[in-house]
């Protein structure tokens, strides 16, 4: 992916921005250009809740290019407080201590893969909520 493409998606990637449809009021992620529910193009950017619940997860041992050095890592299915679901990396917890149903919150983290020229990449991840 080119630097410009990485830059272009930084808002959703850094802040977990989705859309709210101004016609049917549905909220969704990832962001779109057309509402998948009613077809409207009147979509507003919408900040998604930063907290949610880990519905399920998997531990990844076979990684794509650039991620070989960080296996095993956890990918989770997170249901946010407004019901929107997101698949995302889970961080700040030992692989053995990840539990279904655990409360998680948004954080921004560095990825192992870098763009050409060494530009460091970041993305949304979720970590356990510390009570």
């Amino acid at each position, binding site marked *: 992916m080119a630097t410009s493409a990485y830059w272009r998606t930084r808002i959703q990637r850094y802040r977990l921005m989705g859309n709210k449809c101004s016609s049917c009021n549905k909220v969704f992620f990832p962001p779109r250009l057309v509402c998948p529910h009613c077809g409207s193009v009147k979509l507003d950017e919408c900040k998604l809740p930063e907290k949610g619940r880990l519905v399920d997860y*998997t531990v990844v041992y*076979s*990684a794509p290019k650039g991620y070989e050095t960080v296996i095993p890592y956890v990918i989770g299915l997170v249901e946010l407080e407004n019901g929107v679901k997101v698949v*995302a990396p889970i961080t700040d917890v030992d692989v053995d201590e990840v539990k279904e149903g655990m409360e998680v919150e948004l954080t921004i983290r560095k990825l192992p893969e870098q763009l050409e020229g060494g530009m460091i990449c970041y*993305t949304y991840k979720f970590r356990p909520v510390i009570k």
Partner: protein
Amino acid sequence: MREVAVVSVGYTRVSEHWEKSIKALFVEAALKALENADLSAKSLDGIYVANVFAGCLQGQTNLANVLADSLGLYDKFAISIDAGGASGALAIHEAYKDVAHGVRDLVMVCGVEKMSEASPQEIVSALTSVVDQEHLKYTGITVHSLAALIYKTYLKRFNKKQEDVALMSVIDHEHAATCHHAQYPFKLSLETIMSSAILADPIRVLEAISPSDGSAAIIMCLHEKAKELGLPHVKLVTSQIARDRLNLTERDDLLSMKALVEAAQRAYSSAGIRPSDLSFVELYDDYSIMGVIALEKLGLCGPGEGVELLKSGEVKLSGSIPVNTFGGLKARGAPLGAIGVYQAIEAFLQLTGNAGPNQVKNARIGLTHTSCGFNSIVVINLFEVCC
């Protein structure tokens, strides 16, 4: 609509063909299909080329044009079709429509893929590239991890054990053991599968497809023309396609597989048959769990009963509904864009009585199920024996 037949097939073994280029693989399968029908390339009205990874792994785009040229077809219709794992079946679907509607009379569909020229990491990236990259690139999410979430949901919902689901791979290998074109023509025990490395928990390496090279070609034409040619042929009764949301998180349920249900129902209805009328099924098991779910969604058993059907033995060659009669994606092998064409060839071999030791008795109707992106695109093709 005009009736459509498959009159000839040609294919390479699925393997790691280090010594052959994508062009060489294509020409080999295409020439075999032509030779088996005693036809010349010049007699074709066009070719449909299914491929997924030539652009990213070989740096070769414009593939249909390149391959038509390599076959000496300089002035004939040629189109590339890319729909991930559904590419081969979708190419057949397009050819079927053209022949059925009188656009072209005699065509060749070829699926070709060369995945062995890539590292394991490049393969994971390539396989993952069928899902939305603007969204998922730079997250570390892989296609294996998405399949793993489906797998875990299934085990929990139906209270099943992984060992039961992994039986799908055992049976695939049992069928491939006597298949000359299989990439892995040997039996595998459940213990070996369950002790293999983990791709994404709980999926084991031996429950998933591996990188494959291969090329498969079929020649399709008007049913009347097939009779004129005097060749053994089978009818392509119907070809149905359905789509669903690509993002799993946007589906109501990870296990719903709406497109698969819809395409299957339309295929049965269009052909006027029920699942129990099928003589055999070639289904898309890129992961063992996806094969088990397909058994259920195709209506071969009820929800959550896929593993019972596997255990019953009815899906073996001697059973009431043989599944993946030459080893399926796991053991015959899965050159991604060619999968649907290999399945069609396997249906052809069964229905013309040329399946050798893998022959299903009294084979009359065969179904092929091909999918891309966890059944976000599904193509169901139904083949029938010609009297």
